[in-house]
């Protein structure tokens, strides 16, 4: 059975092979991780993640080359919890619980895409590093299925979820998207490092849809820096027990998943 530590070892080797240009920074992150007496970076609490801000290069938004978002849809999307949006923006009215904040969004949006500026001011800045992951796949159609396609497990999808969307045109015009790198994904258990040598136009997710049989390369993904709330729209989705019923269950702490990831990474 592969442990997170094993997976991290493999990731380091892949990083060296596929994204050699970042290896110096990657090593610095590794040394810093060891100095915190941690053997792997996939189960860190928020406080520990924050400590990495001591490394100046890590605080900067992203490291990848500029991405060319596929224009399959006029928007790119992101799944997150209502809490993530409340904490990452200047939220107008915190009702005190995720459920109540989500309910307020749901009441006001009536289940339709609504400008985020109706609920928040300023920018959307995901802490600790102030960038976020996006895909052109319409995640809102089914957040559990969508999550699997972008390499998110069930236990990372909030019940009180929201999908955010941002116009592709705006992203392109302002050259906001970057190809995700091993540095961006240093703390991500599930990540497909693209090959530097082919100058990829965008990153690739690892598709968990076929779990527990296999994992496969998934969809496009890019990272975006801090975004003004004026450019974002929000759609609340209640991914409760009924919503999840009958759907594939993939948990991040599953040994089967670790085994599949080990095998996937070994073939990269």
């Amino acid at each position, binding site marked *: 059975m592969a442990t997170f530590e094993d997976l991290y070892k493999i990731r380091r080797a892949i990083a060296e092979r596929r994204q050699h240009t970042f290896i110096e920074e990657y090593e610095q992150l590794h040394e810093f991780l060891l100095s915190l007496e941690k053997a792997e970076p996939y189960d860190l609490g928020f406080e520990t993640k924050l400590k990495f801000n001591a490394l100046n290069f890590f605080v900067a938004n992203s490291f990848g080359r500029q991405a060319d978002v596929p224009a399959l849809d006029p928007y790119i999307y992101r799944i997150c919890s209502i809490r993530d949006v409340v904490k990452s923006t200047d939220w107008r009215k915190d009702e005190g619980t995720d*459920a109540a904040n989500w309910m307020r969004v749901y009441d006001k949006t009536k289940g339709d895409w609504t400008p985020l500026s109706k609920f928040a001011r300023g920018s959307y800045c995901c802490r600790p590093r102030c960038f976020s992951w996006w895909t052109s796949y319409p995640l809102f159609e089914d957040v559990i299925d969508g999550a699997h396609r972008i390499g998110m497990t069930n*236990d990372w999808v909030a019940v009180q979820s929201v999908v955010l969307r941002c116009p592709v045109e705006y992203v392109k015009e302002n050259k906001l998207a970057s190809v995700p790198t091993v540095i961006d994904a240093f703390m991500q258990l599930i990540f497909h490092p693209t090959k530097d040598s082919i100058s990829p136009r965008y990153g690739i997710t690892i598709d968990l849809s076929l779990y527990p049989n296999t994992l496969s390369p998934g969809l496009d993904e890019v990272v975006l820096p801090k975004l003004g709330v004026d450019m974002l729209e929000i759609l609340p989705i209640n991914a409760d027990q009924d919503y999840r019923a009958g759907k594939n269950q993939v948990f991040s702490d599953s040994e089967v998943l670790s085994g599949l990831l080990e095998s996937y990474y070994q073939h990269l």
Partner: protein
Amino acid sequence: MKYDPQDPILEETAPSTNAHSFMELALRPSVQAWKRKLYGLLAGESSEALSKLGIEQYIRVLLAESKDRSAQYCFSEAVAEVVQEWNSTVLESADRLSRILSLVAGFTPAVGFSKVLTHLERSENVKRSQERVSDEYDRVDLYKRGMLALAQYYPSPPFHSYDDLGFAAYRSLLERNLEDERYSGYAAVRLLELKVLNFKSKQFAALLLTEDKAATSVFQALLELAEEPREVPSVERRFGDMLVTCARADNIQRFERLAQMNRATFDPQGDYQVFFPTLRLSDGTVLEIRLDIDDIKDTPLHEFVKYTTIKVKELLRQETLNEDKIGRYVSGYIDEKINQREAMRDLFDALKALDANMRSSKNKFFVTVKRNNFPIEIKLRVKGEIQEELMKWILTRPALVIQFPFPVASAAA
């Protein structure tokens, strides 16, 4: 892979999991396992899922992913026990306190209310308003978080609020916080939501005129409420109450400044079409401020209220009649000008010119307007002392009779 706890094949082949793992608890919940998990969470257990979701969503996802029907029961029992075992009079670390408050706010176990209330009452002298907690980037106001937890128990006033000791204690806590600039805004809005504080009360007037934070928060809360179309008339009336309070204190500037602070523009005369004070919001929306003319008679606001037959005509000419406005405006006109012969004659002439008239029935007064050949009656509010005088006017002015067009039976029938 779906887990069916009663499927022996799956049971045999299911991957072995760590007894404390997310997956294990989702698949095989028990009160003890949940309790162990909750204590682990309070002690600062970390995982990627927890880091992504926070304690409340982490638990909700666990419950949603659990196929075992007893999961919710096991969790409810466990959370009640864990909160019961919390001694809320002991000084806790910011981290632990923050997590307990999230747990109570998110899942409202019965015992949670009194625990949090006790905690807040005990900490009134030293409110923990700027604490660093490990799972959040910005500093956290734990006292406010406690108040937010209590609010979950009383989203609206209880039916028998005077018999509810918990509510009484909650209300006193909020009232005490009206004195604290850091929390007065939140407390004022909550007390208004709970219908404890009345917009027309002296207590509210004092807050409005002297407490910047409370007044701004209330103003802001009303603007937010006005985003819901069904709430607009009520919000407009409440703005009217606030404006009257400011006007009575000879401080209309106060209302104007509150509007500015909320990126709105106060116009005491209002739009010519609207004729009552208005509030233009930053997004261009215009709210009317509804107030009773009687309430502003002796205030500086009265200078802005002007009655003319031009406006009467304008209102009556509109394709869709705004009965509320017409009723209020014509009533105000009569009230102010009943002793001015010329002005009253002008009013009746204006009505006549528009095929409208005024009539009385059983001490009630109406303006009748014709639309699509049907008479529409708009009720007026005429004070007792001027009713007789108005009756004289009605009786001495030959009114047009607007007939109701009864259907005529056809010859074929």
